[in-house]
């Protein structure tokens, strides 16, 4: 499935705007992301959020990813 990357993450994926990873859950997606792109580890340490069809998930690694969903990775941020 196609995974779109925020510009802030693209350098860690060799400058690609999107990458291809097959994953059933957010947890699988993030572990495969690090395996395929070791430079992502610094971003994963800082936190990566996963938007599935526009809904942002920060922590739920068990969340299932529908096969036809739009997946967008962006930095994990905090609120006040």
């Amino acid at each position, binding site marked *: 499935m196609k995974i*779109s990357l*925020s*510009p*802030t993450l693209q*350098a860690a994926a060799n400058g690609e705007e999107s990458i291809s990873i097959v994953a059933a859950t957010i947890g699988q997606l993030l572990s495969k992301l690090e395996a395929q792109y070791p430079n992502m580890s610094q971003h994963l340490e*800082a936190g990566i959020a996963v*938007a599935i*069809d*526009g*809904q*942002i*998930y*920060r*922590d*739920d690694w068990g*969340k299932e990813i529908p096969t036809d969903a*739009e997946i*967008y990775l*962006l*930095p994990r*941020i*905090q*609120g*006040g």
Partner: protein
Amino acid sequence: MGNDTSYTDQKFEQVGRRVRRPDGVDKVTGRAKYGADAYAPGQLVGLILRSPHAHARIKKIDISKAEKLPGVKAVVTCEDLPDLTGGNRGMMDILENCMARGRALYDGHAVAAVAAVDKTIAKQALKLIKVTYEKLPHVTDVDEAMEADAPVVQDFVFTSGVEPKPTKPSNVSGISQFGHGDVDAGFAEADVIVEKSYKTEQTHQGYIEPHACLANMSSDGSGELWVTTQGHFVFRNVCSTLLGIDIAKLKVTASEIGGGFGGKTHVWMEPVALVLSRKANRPVKLVMTRDEVFKASGPTCSTSIDVKIGAKKDGTITAASASLRYQNGAFPANWGMIGAMTAYACYDLKNVKTVGYDVLVNRPKVAAYRAPSAPMAAFGVESTMDLMAGKLGMDPVEFRIKNAAKEGTRASYGPVYGPIGIGPTLEAVKKHPHMRAKLKKNQGRGMACGFWFNFGGQTCTDLNIGIDGTVSLTVGTIDVGGSRASLSLIAAEELGIDYEQVKASVADTASLGHNDMTEGSRGTFSSGMATIFAARNAVEVMKGRAAKMWDIPVEDVVWENGGAKATGKAHSNLPPLTLKEIAAKSPQTGGPIAGHNETVADNAGVSFASHICDVEVDPETGSTRVIRYTVIQDAGKAIHPDYVEGQFQGGAAQGIGWALNEEYIYGKDGTLQNPGFLDYRIPVCSDLPFIDTEILEIPNPNHPYGVRGVGETSIVPPLAAIGNAVSNAVGVRLNHIPMSPPRILKALDEQAGG
């Protein structure tokens, strides 16, 4: 139903009521215990010695005389806070902010601390600590800090987000770009382009209660901490990591909180209190003065922002860009990145590019402040939107409606939106009577939009039913705005009982699983979700107990109207059992009845608001009064409308103060000139009009009741709404926040050709 988070369009009996909050009487009678209200036998008074310099090398700290002063039980420096962070730079920054290590990085940075039997002796001890400083060049302005010859604040910081990786340290800790399309092509398409630069000054959250804690370390290595905080579980984890304490051996109890707004999401002096207590082997109470709160807790960023918008004559925006420079204080953070993410989130843009710069300066570490980073970005964008509407000869509301984001829009920060509420808030603005009210001379009306993400997070909740049928609801999210009332309403709704039968309280860290901070507008969203599931869990237990009482299969029992009902013809002669009747028999049917839930309440759904504001400007003094203010925001579902309105009003009030008065003023020597509420003026009641609210309820599809977070978005539009109103009142466009009387007078003088 189980733990399905999907929205169900259920009818409510309890939710939506304006009931009395359980903490109300204690708070208005003075019984409520805040951070400074705890006492322990033999407690000592802790005080912190702080740097008087903006940037200085600490050559020597001599604590020998202070240690010998009778009544002094402990003196600590960074030597007592060894690096146990295992190379975690973020944790190291927290440690270094709590106590300087070799360099003082800002005016007010802690360099040593004492614990003594009373305040007088503690103060004397501070005077006996001799610190030898070597002053270093400093920088406090965000733009100056980015210049090539600026003093470097942290030599381990190399700009991230650029290729090739820099070889020299820089005050720019990170550059983050967001957007899509081709902005150059978009601007080439535009009939009109508006470009403008803006500045916003640093402000503090201004919570009335200062930071305060009581630390009590035992000689067996365990400890307790009573503290005012937005997240005692996170404080426990951070303090444990920094001080080498097992998490299970540090019990943290949260006091009532006198405001936080993001400023109490970080530890500032709590690890120091614990170390003092460990060294003295006595409890130690540390309470910041207001001066310390301003100088050494976490205000929000000051910023410098450039905005460029291009549009067709028909009002379609063809391209938009922004460069957003945010100062983060003396430690790296990503506030500029968040500004870049939020800047254009309200709009449907084909071509958009934002670049955020995170910049270090010699000021205190920046903390979150209610929708952090978004208000400043919105000030730049929403002011420019009004300028563009003016150039196009369009109504500012219609111009925004034409370009508003909607379901299917690619957000400027990346993903495609699901169902969102910006359009309905703008339509509500258009229809609101406020927009048709007449204005007098020197009065003007402005409006602006705002966006915030909202978050969920780790949450854990217990629900215990007493033998009299009353319900103890135990949550782990700090109640900053009435959430105990809201969560009690939710528990009552699920159980089918009256609100008065439920009593909610916030547990200490030894009594409940981890809960994330009350931040990101998550309190009622996430603990509400956990409360629903915990209550449903308890209902299943009660159905089993009723089955036992009736001696029928549990499959034949349903829960209706606050009680168990036997179904099927075989049981038609059994009258329903109420919750109270089931609870009364619980000792004989299996013991205590409880429900529990732990969850990661993710997918909170983004939030939008539109504000309308009328101001009156006195052209002789430059003084501006807000004479009418209306907040329109989507709440998903207002569990307790009073507290939703309270959040709307509170955010607007803070935004009004930020827009008109509040400002950190630094001298040329890099020291803060106005660390007190006399010289740093937050709005008081007499400064504010009644802030009207309109709650829109567009259900969040990912919460059983449709709840969205409401706590933060309302601080986003006020800066721009007031700027637009001032412009419409007296014809001058202020591009520097706060729009204080001197700045307005200067702008009026310039307009008059003076």
